[in-house]
């Protein structure tokens, strides 16, 4: 079914438009995507380092998320738009890649964690600043979050090499 959808998508006029200009459109979109990843990865890094107490000692957690939260959200939006453009431009490459679906799962988890942090921090600021940041579980979650985003970047690049998954790859074999 995914395969039929990918093939249908590749015949749409928007996809054909991207395909006909793919010599420069695809690398341009990929470059913007990578730049936005840089913003996401370092925004998550700075918030997590603050939770871990490894950076931003002169800032409260709220000040740190106020600084990096909006950049994180906007960069995620840019990633969504450029990501969808790449899927439309090369549907088979993306949708039939195991790395792509693993990445989408981790993106959902990573975004959910970031959203929960932002919402609970705003509604329960004192509890976060005084108690939660010192909890081992919260600190572990900060490290896990960072690893999730690093994993997302690695899986993103591996979309181009789906054969690394061997027989788990969704790519059709001849």
């Amino acid at each position, binding site marked *: 079914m995914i395969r039929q959808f990918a093939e249908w998508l590749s015949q749409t006029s928007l996809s054909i438009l991207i395909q006909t200009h793919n010599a420069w459109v695809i690398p341009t979109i990929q470059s913007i995507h990578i730049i936005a990843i840089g913003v996401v990865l370092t925004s998550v890094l700075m918030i997590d380092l603050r939770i871990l107490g490894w950076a931003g000692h002169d800032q409260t957690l709220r000040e740190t998320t106020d600084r990096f939260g909006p950049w994180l959200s906007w960069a995620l939006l840019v990633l969504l738009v450029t990501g969808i453009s790449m899927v439309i431009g090369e549907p088979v490459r993306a949708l039939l890649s195991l790395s792509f679906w693993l990445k989408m799962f981790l993106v959902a988890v990573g975004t959910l964690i970031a959203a929960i942090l932002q919402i609970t921090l705003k509604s329960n600021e004192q509890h976060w600043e005084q108690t939660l940041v010192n909890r081992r579980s919260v600190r572990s979650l900060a490290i896990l979050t960072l690893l999730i985003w690093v994993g997302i970047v690695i899986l993103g*690049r591996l979309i181009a*090499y789906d*054969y690394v998954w061997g027989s788990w790859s969704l790519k059709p074999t001849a």
Partner: protein
Amino acid sequence: MDITGFLASLESSSLATGIRDSLYVFPLIESLHVVGLTMVFGTMLIVDLRLLGIASIRRPFTSITSDIMKWTWASFIWTAATGVLMFVTNANVYYHNFFFRTKIVLLALAGINVLIFELTSGRTVHRWHKDAAAPLAGRTAAILSLLLWITIIVMGRWIGFTTSQSKAPLDRDINLDDLFTPPANESGSPK
């Protein structure tokens, strides 16, 4: 030894053949290169926006750099190391690639930019580190830094589209086209 011989010896080194002989190592190195370069760019962006007076302006410049620059340098070394590993697998092709050459020149310019910053605004940092923005020399360095790093990323991505090399081993028994069908209009190495 002339450059052609040098490049050939890099390509035939056990390191390069070892990477080429594996289906998995090159993609993994490339992925780790992307992790590193996005960290370099993102951390530099935080510093540059602070110099320009756009973000983190209520924190002293020196607090930002003491938090961040160690990550920038670690990521840069990481990215350079993975870059060298990719280079040796196909040294001759990369060496002659326009986008690769441009990228190296821009990296050198980014280094010179840092050096000039250190010799100008960097020297008087104690005088302005609490100001919302850096002096003109610092703001100029920040703009140049952003332009250079963005262009370096774009050049890097273009290298992947203009170098034809099987990133996987050239094993005559395995035809990679049998393992996966490349999308239409795509040829050469995985991008």
